[in-house]
């Protein structure tokens, strides 16, 4: 029996770059980055359970320029992954598949993530915590 070549899915390279696939990739990247954030959070908890010098070391690390930058990035990654995750949950329930709904929710997730990140850091600044 002759084995016919099976049709292959078109390679990624032929697709036009657009908001949908960008956000899909960003969801994965933020997920990986948040997994690293989880390790940092656990380190913070372990340091907090230790003595006060151990906690001071952790606090100094988080308050360093790299620490601040990482915390800022984790805030954005968290809110983006949260909002885009909710978008995914709506799709799983069968809603929001139409082109306009898809694009609107995409931009809402991005704008929401920026606004919430700005809001959290704005509150920190407002309360003199920075």
């Amino acid at each position: 029996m002759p084995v016919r070549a099976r049709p292959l899915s078109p390679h990624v390279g032929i697709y036009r770059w657009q908001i949908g696939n960008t956000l899909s990739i960003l969801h994965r990247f933020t997920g990986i980055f948040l997994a690293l954030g989880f390790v940092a959070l656990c380190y913070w908890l372990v340091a907090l359970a230790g003595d006060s010098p151990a906690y001071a070391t952790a606090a100094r690390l988080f308050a360093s320029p790299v620490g601040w930058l990482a915390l800022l990035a984790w805030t954005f990654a968290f809110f983006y992954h949260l909002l885009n995750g909710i978008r995914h949950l709506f799709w799983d329930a069968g809603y929001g598949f139409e082109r306009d709904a898809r694009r609107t929710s995409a931009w809402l997730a991005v704008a929401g993530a920026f606004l919430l990140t700005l809001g959290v850091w704005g509150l920190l600044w407002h309360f003199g915590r920075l």
Partner: protein
Amino acid sequence: MSLRSPLGRARGLGSAKAGTAHWWGQRVSAIALIPLCLWFVFSLLLLPNLEYDTARAWLHWPVSGFLAILLVAVVAHHSYLGTSVIVEDYVHDEGYKLLGLLSLKFLHVLVAGAAIFAILRIAFGN
């Protein structure tokens, strides 16, 4: 050459029938994490500061200690499910894939276990 038809060969070679549990677990943990993560972020924001004594007093309170343990456990589960899909997607060598999945599992249990133990120490310490 085999005398079996393509359909006959494909039968029984389908999925491992474990995909649904993985997919469902990812969604259930995602839903659970919406309130848990928001609680965590806004609790930290509402604390007057993150000094040693303030943060410990916060986790010493039973409700926060309990929710923090749930948060760590559910994040670890969600994170393991998510990162293991990435390994399965991109690591095609069976040996490395197994090594990757095992390392991810061990790391997640290790990190989450240490964090939960830390929360318990604060919760039941003085």
